[in-house]
């Protein structure tokens, strides 16, 4: 009996030009465009300088800041003007160098500077002022070195980045975006599938047959699983072809985990579909849950920075597990053995959602 149900689903899929187009366009969009967009790195901060000193030191400091990758000098003006620029959004941070900056330092007294950072975006403000502070500290060291004063507390810092030495944001984002892709596609397709049959009325003809509920759900699940695997393949291929990104770990590991995840996501979509009476409703309910799940998955923001209760809530977020797995496999090359908890979690989600989908599918009202 399953054979006939599968035949039907596959025929419907292959005749749906819109769906097939989505299957190509969605991976392309997410993998090609998104990595450029989802860069959270703070750079190109617009620096406005208020120089009351007009000395050699002050202009050297200004040039030093401008030369850094983090800042881009937009103007040198008065404080009022600079503040105006911050207010209109033309400047992010103000460096104010008071009169006698050079004279004080040459007399052996500390020079004074003031930073004012627009911190409406807290991270941006804090990081910007940190960057500028270290540039200023460097400038002091530079001056001391020139003066030949080396018998001083000298601290040299060096940072080494593991797994992603050049801090390429794409390498981090793409494995996560593959998760987004699988979620959107698998969840949306199944969420709209059963409710689509309800709207078309075809579900009536099915419900009046003796087809077991589990077989009907399985007939929907399997084709969707294959679509999901196709999307995964497309996504990974685009990541390789366009960004040159290949997983450090094994493809089979990815296949295993993603396979479980696709089942879970499809099951979730079917549960939503079973409880909805119109496609519009299904779409909204899905949107509602997906927004919450996506935001709390650790894909865009670190889970470690969330408050304790929220971290506890993410235990029931299937996206979280696949996001972890994809990044571990892509960047660190971890194997299945190191990710058993994630595997169990994903299997559990797959079982729970699909059993729920069978139970919540009502052949009789």
């Amino acid at each position, binding site marked *: 009996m399953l054979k006939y*149900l599968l035949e*039907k689903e596959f025929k419907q899929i292959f005749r749906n030009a819109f769906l097939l187009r989505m299957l190509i366009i969605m991976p392309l969009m997410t993998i090609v465009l998104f990595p450029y967009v989802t860069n959270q790195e703070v750079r190109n901060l617009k620096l406005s300088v208020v120089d009351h000193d007009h000395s050699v030191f002050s202009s050297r400091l200004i040039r030093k800041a401008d030369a850094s990758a983090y800042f881009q000098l937009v103007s040198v003006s008065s404080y009022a003007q600079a503040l105006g620029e911050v207010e209109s959004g033309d400047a992010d941070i103000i460096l104010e160098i008071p009169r006698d900056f050079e004279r004080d330092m040459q007399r052996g007294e500390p020079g004074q500077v003031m930073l004012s950072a627009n911190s409406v975006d807290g991270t941006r403000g804090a990081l910007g002022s940190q960057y500028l502070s270290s540039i200023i500290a460097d400038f002091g060291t530079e001056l001391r070195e020139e003066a030949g004063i080396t018998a001083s507390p000298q601290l040299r810092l060096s940072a080494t980045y593991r797994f992603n030495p050049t801090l390429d944001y794409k390498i981090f984002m793409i494995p996560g975006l593959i998760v987004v892709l699988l979620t959107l596609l698998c969840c949306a397709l199944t969420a709209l599938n059963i409710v689509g049959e309800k709207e078309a009325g075809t579900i009536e003809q099915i419900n009046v047959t003796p087809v077991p509920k589990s077989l009907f759900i399985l007939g929907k699940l399997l084709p969707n699983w294959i679509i999901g695997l196709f999307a995964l393949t497309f996504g990974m291929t685009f990541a390789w072809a366009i960004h040159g990104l290949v997983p450090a770990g094994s493809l089979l590991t990815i296949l295993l985990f993603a396979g479980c995840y696709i089942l879970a996501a499809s099951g979730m979509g079917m549960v939503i579909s079973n409880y909805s009476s119109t496609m519009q409703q299904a779409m909204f309910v899905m949107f509602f849950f997906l927004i919450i799940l996506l935001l709390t998955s650790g894909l865009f923001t670190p889970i470690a920075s969330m408050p304790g209760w929220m971290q506890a809530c993410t235990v029931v977020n299937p996206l979280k597990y696949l996001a972890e797995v994809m990044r571990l496999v892509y960047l660190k090359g971890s194997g299945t053995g190191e990710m058993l908890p994630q595997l169990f979690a994903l299997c559990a989600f797959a079982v729970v959602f699909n059993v729920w989908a069978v139970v919540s599918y009502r052949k009789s009202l």
Partner: protein
Amino acid sequence: MEEKVIWADGLTKSFGAFTAVDHISFEVRRGEIFGFLGANGAGKTTAMRMLCGLSLPTSGRGEVAGFDIATQQEEVKKHIGYMSQKFSLYEDLKVWENLRLFGGIYGLKSRAIREKTDEILSDLGFESERNTFVRALPLGWKQKLAFSVSIFHEPKVVFLDEPTGGVDPMTRRQFWELIYRAADKGITVFVTTHYMDEAEYCDRVSIMVDGKIEALDSPRALREQFRAENMDDVFQQLARKAKRTSD
């Protein structure tokens, strides 16, 4: 001794305070063509859905093909065919694919399905439409196809919910020929309609008003009982009592 294929006793379905079907009781014999009449909103479809196992009765009992409609719905479903009021075959599948799908669901073997498909298509004069997408068929043809699907697995009973709605008189006549042919094969036909001329084609009819069965007998007996020229008169006399308005 005539076999009772369908019987209902005090069958009731309520949605909240609204009682759509109100204690209906009747019997349908094997091979009979049973007309289930009533105005829009009288409760015909709801009653039929209960008999098909699509809807659980609020109270009362009923059996179809020897199985309880409240507890053995999946068993009931094995022995019935159903054609819903709204066309419900897959529009994005071809004619033969729809037949194959439903044949398969009812457990027919691939080979049996192929033979049966050929037979049905030639009966209907549909050979040339075998590979046509269902969405491209005219309404009358769609309904004939839907009927064929509903009796494809040779069920004991077939439930037809307003099978001839919206088609021309010619097609309606052809459709009734199909119904007779099915009845000849021993399939019991349970059909709702609001075309009163069609009521005359039935062996027996029941007339539902406001969720209750107000009359049940052969068309001729009913005409005599109500001293009416035709079934339409009978129906008008009963329908006048209705308090419910249709939507």
